[in-house]
């Protein structure tokens, strides 16, 4: 890991934290409300009073981007937490138990990896009409496979090490061995997979919302802002440019962070 690498990684972290702070403080940072309709100021280009312009209903795009950040970041982070938990449980059980159970769980993993992720999620989201918490679970359940594979590979090699034998000799049962002895050792590799899951989660949420099956209006998310912007894009490009830039920058920062974490792991 080079010095430049570390600096870029830190910049990404600082950028993400700044984004999170802006999202949390959104209500006090902006004089507008996200669904405040102002028909006198419709389709206004970016200006000092409306930094990112206004949309077809006169809503302040900057405000909606800030409030959208709350939804998009929350879904990205929490869905990654779901992938981490499910991926760790399946991966460690698979790697520690081996044999038949491993075979079954890995075939399940292969199954989920073979079905194209986005169409699968789109069908589920269209059928279930999910609330935001449900959306978090759905996106998380569509993404645990990579984590499970990483954890399984680590556990397979770790379980042969002498400290595991020592723990077993002391009478520790498998749940304790996995939880107390293997989990801390698997953590670095699992963290990298989880970081990538955050990036994927944000992209999936925005794509689902862009297709109108994710976060439902009037709640703003970066994806559904773009869904609404699609029809007015040619006359008011700013309503499409800014939310998309936010997705790009956030996912970029998360990916850079994940890369830096790979170097550290």
């Amino acid at each position, binding site marked *: 890991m080079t010095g430049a690498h570390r600096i870029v990684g830190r910049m990404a972290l600082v950028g993400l934290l700044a984004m999170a702070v802006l999202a949390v403080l959104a209500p006090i940072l902006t004089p507008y409300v996200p669904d405040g309709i102002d028909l006198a100021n419709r389709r206004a280009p970016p200006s000092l009073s409306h930094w990112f312009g206004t949309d077809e209903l006169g809503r302040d795009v900057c405000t909606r981007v800030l409030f959208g950040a709350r939804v998009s970041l929350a879904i990205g982070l929490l869905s990654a937490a779901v992938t981490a938990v499910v991926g760790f449980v399946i991966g460690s059980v698979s790697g520690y138990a081996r044999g038949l159970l491993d075979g079954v769980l890995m075939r*399940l993993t292969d199954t989920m990896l*073979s079905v194209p992720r986005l169409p699968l999620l789109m069908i589920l989201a269209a059928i279930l009409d999910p609330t935001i918490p449900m959306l978090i679970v759905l996106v998380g359940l569509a993404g645990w496979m990579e984590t499970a594979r990483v954890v399984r590979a680590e556990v397979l090699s770790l379980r042969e090490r002498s400290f595991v034998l020592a723990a077993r000799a002391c009478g520790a049962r498998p749940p304790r061995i996995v939880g107390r002895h293997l989990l801390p050792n698997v953590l670095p590799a699992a963290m990298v997979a989880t970081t990538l899951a955050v*990036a994927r989660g944000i992209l999936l949420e925005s*794509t689902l919302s862009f297709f109108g099956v994710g976060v439902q209006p009037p709640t703003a998310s970066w994806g559904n802002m773009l869904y609404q912007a699609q029809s007015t894009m040619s006359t008011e490009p700013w309503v499409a440019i800014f939310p998309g830039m936010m997705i790009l920058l956030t*996912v970029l920062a998360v990916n850079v962070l994940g890369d830096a974490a790979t170097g550290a792991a």
Partner: protein
Amino acid sequence: MLRYAARRIAVAVPLLLLISMLVFALTRAAPGGPVEMYLANPNVRPEDIERLRVALGLDQPLLEQYLAWLRGFVTGQWGYSFVDGRPVTTRILERLPATLELMVSSLVVALAAAFPLGIIAALRQRGWFDRVSTVASFAGISLPVFWFGLVLQLVFAIGLGWLPSSGRSAFGAGGVADRLEHLLLPATVLATVHAAAWSRFLRSSMVTALREPFVTAARARGLTGRSVVAHALRTAVLPLTTVVMLDAAIMVSGAVVTESVFAWPGLGSLFTEALARRDYTVLMAFLMSTATAVVVLNLLADVAYRVVDPRVT
């Protein structure tokens, strides 16, 4: 080798069965089942819905419905579209050429970009080209595909007016130049994420290959420039072929988005149209056939790898 291939096929069959169960369960997860669409329509009488349920076999036990559907899928009887009543196989086959055209061109574009990017970056490791292409490839894998499509439309179709914004060909016209103009933007959008990922992958496997003793030996024999690169590339390309095949599932997801943004009349748009109308037979056929394609490609990648590199066991 044949035994290995046979073993891989033996693993793929239960995998396909699991996928079919997942796909079947998915469409039965809807509260009203496949006839959900009609339940909300006040113009459809309850007795008509009941007749439809019987006609579709929805009054049968779930296991029998599943077996009947699976039997149909295997024998090419994919059922009829809920929307226009035509056979699902016809609807899929008429969209297939457009999707293949888009996917193959994207594959070509992605590889054409990934090879020079990856090779030059590996040769000039930590040089300015390496740094710039690293940043570019990170941006490439972080791009929201639909937004990238919208921006390209905005710039090249609406702003500059150089290229058409959507569709596969101009109405009535069918020239090669016209087709290529329509293809350029969607193929670029679909290719970008893969070009970024594959160039990164090729770079790192090239860096490893260039450190191998046989490359040093080639240099010691007096080879320079191109010939050394050719030596290293032969080993570096191998793992890339696997990655390219394994990314098939990602490309299907990408095609759904790209085709929808550019109104490209392929399988991806068929999927979004079917989803909007809850056309379950089409949705099931789409998921099942794309997942089958992914499984087959993965299997081919595994077997091909063993053919090219016999060291792998």
